[in-house]
């Protein structure tokens, strides 16, 4: 399940007992998801610290950050990393509340649910902090859970920040100039386009059905329809892929996908790089020296 699309099926605020059709809900959710990606493009082209960086440097940093965070063991340092992502968000004209909300709803909440039992005396015995009978929260348990949650939201937060501040086309450009084979980049590029057009197809199929559906349909009916539609989309997609390939051929496609790559690293990018390397070394140093586990 995709966090950005996590509301699909859950659907936007739903009154109890309301019988919104599945079609309507799916169409909405998908439309919403597409809009979200579009909004992302707008944010990514706006002003801000991260937006101004060369996408190649951002891609490298995302890996560096995730790896560094994975080596950190101490809770204070992990919390510092979380705060750092928030500071970066603020510096990139991202609303910190919506950023934190997104991180929590996509990764944090889930990590919390997963870790909750490990914070209790069931899984981790130890000094009881909050006595709740068998569900008492223990000190070592809390530490274990917090550590994992902090690491997860730090990683997810930085990833999300890079995604929010980088346009997909720039990600592709960066991949290509970082030496990822043309064929792979071309496939990735087209996948995103195909996803969007498949989404459009699905959305429109739902709309077209909606416009001729007199009732919202029973669950069984909807189930049948959904499975049937997936088969339909599969078959039609095969034809579409053929047509698209023809269209590529018609415009001279010969296996290579050159693009107008114009990535020029500036002093700012190198400064970012230097700061990033220093930060990683510092973080790991402090983690191991100041808070040995």
């Amino acid at each position, binding site marked *: 399940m995709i966090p950005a699309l996590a509301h699909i099926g859950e659907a936007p605020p739903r009154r109890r007992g309301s019988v919104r059709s599945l079609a309507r809900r799916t169409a909405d959710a998908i439309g919403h998801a597409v809009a979200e990606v579009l909004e992302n493009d*707008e944010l990514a082209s706006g002003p801000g610290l991260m937006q101004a960086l060369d996408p190649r440097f951002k891609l490298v940093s995302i890996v560096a950050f995730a790896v560094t965070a994975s080596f950190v063991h101490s809770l204070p340092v992990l919390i510092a990393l979380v705060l750092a992502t928030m500071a970066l968000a603020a510096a990139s004209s991202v609303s910190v509340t919506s950023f934190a909300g997104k991180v929590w709803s996509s990764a944090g909440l889930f990590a919390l649910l997963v870790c909750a039992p490990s914070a209790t005396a069931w899984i981790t015995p130890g000094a009881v902090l909050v006595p709740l009978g068998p569900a008492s929260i223990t000190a070592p348990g809390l530490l274990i859970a917090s550590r994992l949650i902090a690491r997860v939201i730090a990683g997810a937060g930085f990833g999300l920040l890079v995604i929010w501040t980088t346009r997909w086309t720039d990600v592709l450009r960066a991949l290509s100039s970082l030496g990822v084979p043309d064929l792979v980049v071309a496939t990735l590029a087209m996948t995103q386009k195909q996803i969007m057009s498949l989404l459009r197809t699905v959305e*429109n199929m739902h709309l077209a059905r909606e*416009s001729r559906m007199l*009732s919202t349909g029973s669950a069984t009916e909807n189930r049948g329809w959904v499975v049937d539609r997936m088969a339909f989309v599969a078959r039609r997609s095969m034809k579409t892929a053929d047509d698209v390939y023809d269209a590529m051929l018609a415009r001279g496609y010969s296996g290579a996908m050159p693009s107008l790559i114009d990535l020029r690293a500036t002093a700012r990018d190198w400064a970012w790089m230097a700061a990033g390397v220093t930060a990683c070394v510092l973080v790991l140093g402090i983690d191991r020296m100041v808070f040995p586990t």
Partner: protein
Amino acid sequence: MTAEFVLTGASHSYGAGICALDGIDLTVEPGEHVAVVGANGSGKSTLLKMLDGLAFCTTGTIATAGRPLTEEALEDPAFRREFRSRVGFVFQDADVQLFCNTAFDELAFGPLQLGLDHDEVRTRVAEVAASLRIERLLDRAPYTLSGGEKKRVAIASVLTMRPRVLLMDEPTNALDPRSQVWLLDVLDEWKRAGRTVVIATHDLSAAAESCERMIVLSEEHRIVADGPPEEVLAQRDLLLSVNLVHEHAHRHGADRHVHPHAHEHEHA
């Protein structure tokens, strides 16, 4: 008699601030035939989708037959049934409208939804298929048809429901001349039968012929003209200002028939 559709200050944006319609005030009376014209991207398709309850107002309101047309209202099974069987919609892109495995299923989908008995469904499908000359396509999968064949199946799939209100988005697109004439004949018939039609089109002369009212959308997504087609089309400066027509139009082009008899064979 209550109006078929009433829009007050209706606007629609596609997320990210892409505005598609801006403050539309419009009343469509039962039995009216209204043509919506405008440059590409002016918001015609969005307007029709809103009338069909597929897109909703970002601001403003829209009502049909005296009831608000909102997402919640359509959740009421009775209203939904009444609305969906009263209003039919032909999409601009036939490809996206066709979601069944065969053209036959496509034509039968609506009538089956209406709960008609199977013989009646078969009769309707056969009738409509014959009038659109698509009988021999009924067994084919929609995505293997030619562009115009798809369009015909899309139109047929709405006609089998016999809706009282028809929303058509560029219905003559991709149709061959004969089918275009057939469609205009059908529109004439509907006018006599008192059905309501709202049609988005780029064929100004056909719109002028088949509709008694024409609405012009500007590139800023607002209504800038609304009246009988002859009057609207006479405002040449207005049409030029919304980029609907071209200064060369007299020499040739799609709107050349606005003044169809002003020149003699200069293009032959």
